[in-house]
């Protein structure tokens, strides 16, 4: 398996520009047949909330069509923000604890964070 590009979402959705940049890059990479994985960490987990801005939520929901799922979500980031997966968008996701997170990062060919 070719090592994937890893797009790391680290900022809250209020930083709409960074969210759009990350989504554009993830989708563009898949158009070049590059394997891509997405990781949501820190305030980036807020991007997955159901009450997210419509346009960005719709794009996130289309990730399955682009082979960008399952997305990876940092468990510790959810816990420290008192969030549960029930509050998040219905997307195939893998909630990762420390060790799994490390493996996701190590597997990546290149890491780009926004």
């Amino acid at each position: 398996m070719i090592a994937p590009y890893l797009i790391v979402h680290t900022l809250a959705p209020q930083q709409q520009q960074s969210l759009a940049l990350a989504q554009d890059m993830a989708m563009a990479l898949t158009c070049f047949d590059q394997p891509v994985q997405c990781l949501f960490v820190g305030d980036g987990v807020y991007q997955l909330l159901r009450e997210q801005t419509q346009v960005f939520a719709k794009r996130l929901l289309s990730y399955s069509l682009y082979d960008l799922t399952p997305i990876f979500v940092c468990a510790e980031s959810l816990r420290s923000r008192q969030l549960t997966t029930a509050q998040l968008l219905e997307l195939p996701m893998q909630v990762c604890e420390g060790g799994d997170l490390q493996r996701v990062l190590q597997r990546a060919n290149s890491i780009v964070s926004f």
Partner: protein
Amino acid sequence: MTRMAILISAMPEQQAGCLTALRFCQAAIAEDQKLSSIFFYGSAVLIAQPIHSNNANEPCVRFAWQQWAQAQQLRLALCSAAVTRFGITTPSVVFNVSGLGQWLGSLQSADRLIQFR
């Protein structure tokens, strides 16, 4: 020799990433490394804004980038979507407006991708 692709997503003069990226690129060239592409993404395209500095002593990262790229005869790639968004009309000759797709295509020839934000 490593071929490096540089991605810059930091806003010039407000985030340290732009200046750090310049220092990195200068060091890489000095060490005979190859920079396969330098791509300014998102608000980093403001690097191409015209320079109207009143104070000649004030360090200006935009000026430093342009001067260096000219001296090295390098073209700095600007993301076309961001250029349109920020209304940058006449970037100087050191800049090359290109699409994200075009840049991603050029990544194939790079050994390493390095991001500054």
